[in-house]
């Protein structure tokens, strides 16, 4: 009963998407208002049917209906309820269904929120969105069908992959990732519409910016959660290995970040339109590439789903999207003429241009590193690897340059600047650089790149703090009280600016934390007998013994350790080896003691219950927790920046000041 219902709903979504896409493009050509209305209806119909199908699947999972093929594949009556919900995205077919649902929600929301004042672009945008949706519904209906009917339903199932049950972060990392990935379809649709129309006007710039920002926030958090999960679960003490699937999530984030910056220059100066649109197209294409990389089995990765038939299908869609995008860009990009100019290299506009370049370079480097083994194998038949040493060598200098621009860019004014102005802008933050450098050195940082990062970071920090509070300071100069100026200038009127600089400040913290935690990390391998104490990373570690804990789905062998410093006990750590019923090999699970200053991390490599011995690796790394916290701050800052400003304040030309300080724009900004 459920499986056929699911299949019907998927077919309905496929029909709605395909028909809606065609109608959308038709309405775009004929500018028919009726056509647009129908396109919208089909968009909502697609959303409704795919969301319903997903809810049906969730119901089937919770009800343990093993007559549905996906439930038979990942369901189990032995697992906790939250794992049952999580199993929706734990395996390939379910994850594509989940993708469809997220896409449905995004398309419905985008259609609804841009239904007024954006009629020029909506038809083509809807066409692109629903075209993408049709492809994913096709996948769900065909090669990746989770709604097959199982002829003889089993009484129970194997449950999802045991690794995924190890930690609660498994529950939230994938949804965030999908909310990021899938969401990039929306700005892509608008950008395509802009290219088709040959115009990148204000009434499409705003939807592009907002529809890019939201998925970007989710993607940022998703990447952080992935790193955090790897750190807490995998046991090697690190959080980023440049694994192909990790890179797949980073690539669209890089181009999206560049696009978010580039769009600012379009809004203010009317230049870099072609760059901006290309970056948005690239983001979407990298999303499709990313999903191909994860699901095709072509790449050797910790995250890969098993090889399946959908690889070639996704590649086909990628090829089609590439052709469509290249053709669209080639034929239409020249229509997006620049409407402004750059006054000189020492201007904020020029910095944005360089910023674009650096992000594109980083994207290119990560992409080429990931794909190079495939190229070599195709051309020479030789197998080779590109691992952390390569990616680290390339990304560290580029990251440092980006941090440098993060400081210098906002310091420089828009437009023409005299030599005196440039000096006044660029020299004072050197103080910040020196302060951070000294502080870092005292903290223990010694490696050259870490010191460079600290210097650039300190410079950027001073610039960011300075720029962040300009609105408030200006109001205070005009006579407002501190509180009044803060509330009016930062919270009510200057949200976009304030939020953006919070994002920058957070980014500085992330980069410095990554630099210090990697370069100052200690790794010690020790072998213990019960009761023994040994030193690691400045701490005294005592082995208390082995414990065993039994749960319905797994047996845990736990090594109990106490960690002390200067005679005082700090914490008790219990790294374990989990033996799951469904897996042959046990899975190790480290234990971490996190403080603001440093993490003490113990990973169990060997444990003998009989003889009460254990082999462990102890990692001590400073400032790790700041990576996670700063990304959360980054997300909050960006969300704050997104809160809509008050309704348009129409200012006549005489009041237009063209100054940078206050965010009131003279072009009508719709709420």
């Amino acid at each position, binding site marked *: 009963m459920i499986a056929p219902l699911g299949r019907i709903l998927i077919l309905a979504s496929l029909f709605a998407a395909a028909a809606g896409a065609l109608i959308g493009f038709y309405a775009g050509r004929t500018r028919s208002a009726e056509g647009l209305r129908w396109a919208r209806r089909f968009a909502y119909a697609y959303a409704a049917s795919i969301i319903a199908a997903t809810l049906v699947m969730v119901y089937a999972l919770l009800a343990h209906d093993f007559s549905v093929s996906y439930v038979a594949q990942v369901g189990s009556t032995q697992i906790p309820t939250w794992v049952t919900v999580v199993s929706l995205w734990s395996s390939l077919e379910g994850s594509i269904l989940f993708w469809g649902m997220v896409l449905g929600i995004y398309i419905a929301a985008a259609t609804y929120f841009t239904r007024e004042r954006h009629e020029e672009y909506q038809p083509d945008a809807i066409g692109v969105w629903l075209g993408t949706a049709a492809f994913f519904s096709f996948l769900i209906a065909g090669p990746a069908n989770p709604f097959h009917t199982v002829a003889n339903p089993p009484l129970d199932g194997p449950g999802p992959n045991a690794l995924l049950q190890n930690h609660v972060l498994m529950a939230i990392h994938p949804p965030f990732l999908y909310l990021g990935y899938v969401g990039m379809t929306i700005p892509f649709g608008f950008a395509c519409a802009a290219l088709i129309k040959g115009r990148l006007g204000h009434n499409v710039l705003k939807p592009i910016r907002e529809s890019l920002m939201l998925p970007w926030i989710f993607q940022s958090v998703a990447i952080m959660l992935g790193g955090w999960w790897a750190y807490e679960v995998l046991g090697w003490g690190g959080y980023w290995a440049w694994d192909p699937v990790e890179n797949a999530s980073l690539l669209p984030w890089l181009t999206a970040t560049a696009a978010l910056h580039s769009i600012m220059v379009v809004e203010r100066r009317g230049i870099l339109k072609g760059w901006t649109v290309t970056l948005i197209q690239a983001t979407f294409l990298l999303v499709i590439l990313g999903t*191909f990389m994860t699901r095709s089995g*072509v790449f050797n990765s910790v995250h890969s789903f098993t090889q399946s038939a959908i690889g*070639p299908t996704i590649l086909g869609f*990628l090829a089609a999207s*590439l052709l469509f995008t290249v053709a669209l860009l080639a034929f239409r990009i020249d229509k997006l003429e620049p409407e402004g100019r750059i006054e000189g290299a020492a201007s904020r506009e020029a910095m944005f241009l360089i910023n674009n370049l650096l992000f594109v370079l980083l994207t290119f480097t990560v992409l080429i590193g990931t*794909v190079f083994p495939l190229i070599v194998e*195709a051309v020479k038949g030789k197998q080779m690897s590109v691992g952390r040493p390569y990616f680290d060598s390339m990304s560290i200098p580029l990251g440092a340059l980006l941090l440098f621009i993060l400081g210098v860019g906002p310091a420089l004014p828009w437009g023409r600047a005299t030599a005196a102005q440039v000096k006044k802008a660029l020299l004072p933050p050197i103080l910040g650089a020196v302060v951070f450098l000294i502080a870092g050195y005292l903290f223990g940082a010694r490696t050259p790149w870490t010191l460079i990062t600290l210097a650039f970071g300190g410079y950027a920090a001073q610039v960011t703090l300075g720029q962040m509070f300009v609105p408030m300071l200006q109001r205070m100069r005009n006579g407002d009280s501190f509180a009044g100026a803060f509330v009016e200038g930062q919270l009510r009127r200057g949200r976009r600016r304030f939020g953006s600089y919070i994002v920058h400040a957070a980014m500085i913290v992330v980069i410095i934390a990554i630099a210090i935690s990697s370069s100052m990390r200690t790794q010690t391998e020790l072998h213990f007998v019960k009761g023994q104490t040994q030193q690691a990373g400045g701490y005294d570690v005592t082995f208390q013994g082995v414990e065993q804990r039994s749960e319905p789905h797994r047996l845990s062998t736990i090594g109990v350790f106490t960690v002390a410093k200067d005679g005082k006990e700090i914490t008790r750590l219990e790294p374990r080896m989990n033996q799951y019923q469904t897996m042959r090999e046990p899975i190790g699970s480290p234990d971490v003691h996190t403080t603001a200053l440093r993490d003490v991390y113990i990973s169990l490599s060997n444990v003998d219950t009989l003889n009460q011995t254990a082999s462990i690796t102890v990692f001590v790394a400073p400032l790790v927790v700041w990576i996670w916290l700063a990304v959360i701050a980054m997300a909050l800052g960006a969300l704050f920046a997104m809160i809509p400003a008050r309704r348009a304040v129409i200012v006549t030309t005489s009041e237009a000041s063209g100054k940078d300080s206050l965010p009131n724009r003279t072009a009508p900004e719709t709420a």
Partner: protein
Amino acid sequence: MNRTVLLVGLIIAAVLVAVLFAGLGKNPAEIRSPLIGKTAPTFALREVGTSRTVDVTQFRGKPMVVNFWATWCGPCWEEHPVLVANARMLQPQVQFLGVVFQDKEDKILGFLNQRGSSYPTVVDDAGKTAIAYGVGGVPETFFIDANGVIQAKYSGPMSPDVLRENLQKVMKQ
């Protein structure tokens, strides 16, 4: 029309799709051995359950099948009967040899006693021989010709067909 964009775009698109397409169907976890066509590293290891040494050079002049395995490996259980039967059949023309690493002596003996054995099994304690042979996992089987040159390597459980196919490569001479 912007020719630069078209050209650059099409080139990137074509290269990317071609490379990804070429990668489909290949198993990225399967590593090909660089030792094929090279002389097999020599070793002398202790036969399990005894204090006798088995030196691989003593079999020079005969084609050899060297099988790396362990008792905790499922596919090794599958392929064991195939190896035992074929070894019995093909002796003394072809010499079979089992090498176990990362395992416990009593478990290996128990396994062999229970499931039979028709050729020597040696223990590679620290896995150094495995490393010299570039063994990534178990089971892996090497086919060495009468001159001591590795002619083939197979990763995964041995089936009669695969065994026959690879034996042909070393029995040609």
